[in-house]
C-alpha cells in the first residue's frame, strides 16, 4: 500500500506550496498519474481522503489525470502506445519497449483560495 506514502507526499507538496504562496484552503487537486506508474487509482483516492483530513486540503476534490503509456522499441525505434511493460513492438515483435511517457506521478495544479 505505497499509495499511502505517495498520498503523504501530495499533502507535503500542498503544505509547502501553501507556505510559499500564502493560500488558506485548497478546493481541487489535480494529480497526473501515468498508466504505467505503479499506482492503483482507487487506493490513491482512498489514501488521499484519509491523509488530507484536518489539513489545508481537507475536503478538496481530487482530479486524477491519467496519462497513457508510450513506448519506444529498442530494436526498430517504433513509438507506440503501450498498456503494460511486457508488450511486444507491433512493428517488429521485439520485447522490452523503453517507456518514454506514462510513468509519471506528479501534482500538476491546485485550485486554492
Amino acid at each position, binding site marked *: *500500500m*505505497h499509495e499511502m*506514502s*505517495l498520498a*503523504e*507526499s*501530495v*499533502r*507535503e*507538496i500542498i503544505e*509547502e*506550496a501553501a*507556505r510559499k*504562496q*500564502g*493560500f488558506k*484552503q485548497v*478546493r481541487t487537486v489535480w494529480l497526473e498519474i501515468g498508466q504505467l*506508474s*505503479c499506482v492503483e487509482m482507487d487506493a490513491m483516492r482512498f489514501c488521499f481522503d484519509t491523509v488530507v483530513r484536518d489539513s489545508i486540503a481537507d475536503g478538496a476534490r481530487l482530479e486524477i489525470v491519467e496519462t497513457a503509456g508510450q513506448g519506444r522499441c*529498442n530494436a526498430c525505434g517504433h513509438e507506440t502506445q503501450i498498456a*503494460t*511493460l*511486457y508488450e*511486444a513492438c507491433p512493428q517488429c515483435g521485439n*520485447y*522490452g519497449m523503453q517507456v518514454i511517457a506514462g510513468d*509519471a*506521478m*506528479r*501534482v*500538476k*495544479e*491546485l*485550485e*486554492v*483560495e
Partner: protein
Amino acid sequence: MCTTCGCGMGATLIGGRALQRQHKPDGPMRFRSHDAAHVEEATPSRIIKLEQDLLAKNNSYADANRCYLLAHGIFALNLVSSPGSGKTTLLVKTITALNGTQPLAVIEGDQQTDNDAARIRAAGAPAIQINTGKGCHLDAQMVGQAMQQLGLQDDSLLLIENVGNLVCPASFDLGEAHKVVILSVTEGEDKPLKYPDMFRAADLMLLNKCDLLPHLDFDADLAIEYAHRINPKLQVIRISATGGTGMAEWLEWIKDGCRNAVAAKPEASFG
C-alpha cells in the same frame, strides 16, 4: 510523536529507535489587514501550477545516500523479492563466504521483529533492523538514518534487504548501485509478468532454490524469457543458496562491483 502527521508513534523503528521525520516549521502567522477583514464577499479561487513529482522528496534523500556511498567507495545493493524467496538465507551464505575478505554491513527491512538482523549478526556481519511497522517498503530517509547508526567502513559492501514485497519497493530509490531481484523456483514462472515494475527496476535477477528444480514443474528458461521481455538488459544468475550452485558467480559479481566502487571513489573525500 510528530504533530504534523503522527509519524514516530512507534511505527518505524531503526535499530529500535524511532525514525526522525523532519518537517519544516510553519512560516510566520499571517493576519489579514483591518480593512480586508471587513470585506464580505466570496473568496475568489485561483489556480496554482506545481508540476511536482511525488517521489521528489524520497529521491532527494536517495541522492544524498548515493553521494555518501560514492564518496566512500561503498558498493550498495538493494535486495528485493516476495516473502519466502530465500533472501535472508542467501545473505547469510553470502556473508559467510565473504567473511574476512570483504568488509560489509547489512540493513534489514521487515514490518516486525528483528529476527533477520539477529541471523545476520550470528553470521558475523554488523546489521541493523528497520521495522517499518505498517509500511510496505523501505524509503531513502530510513536507509540514510540506518547508515548513520551503522557507521559504514570505507570501501565496504552494504547489503540492504528490503521488505518482502514485489510491488512497492520498485518505486523507492534508496541510493543503491543496483536493485537485485530474487525469484525462487517455488514461485510461478510468470511472476516477472505479474510484477513487471520490479523486474524493470532491477539490474540483476537471482533465480534461487535451483537445487529444487528436479522436483518441480517450474520452467526456468521461460521465467528468464518473461523477465527479459520486460528488461532485456537484466543479468541472470541461477543459484542455490543452500546447495551452492551459482554462488561463485554471484560472489564474483559482488567483488567486481566493490572493486569498481573503490576505483570510482574521488581522491579527496569530503563526504
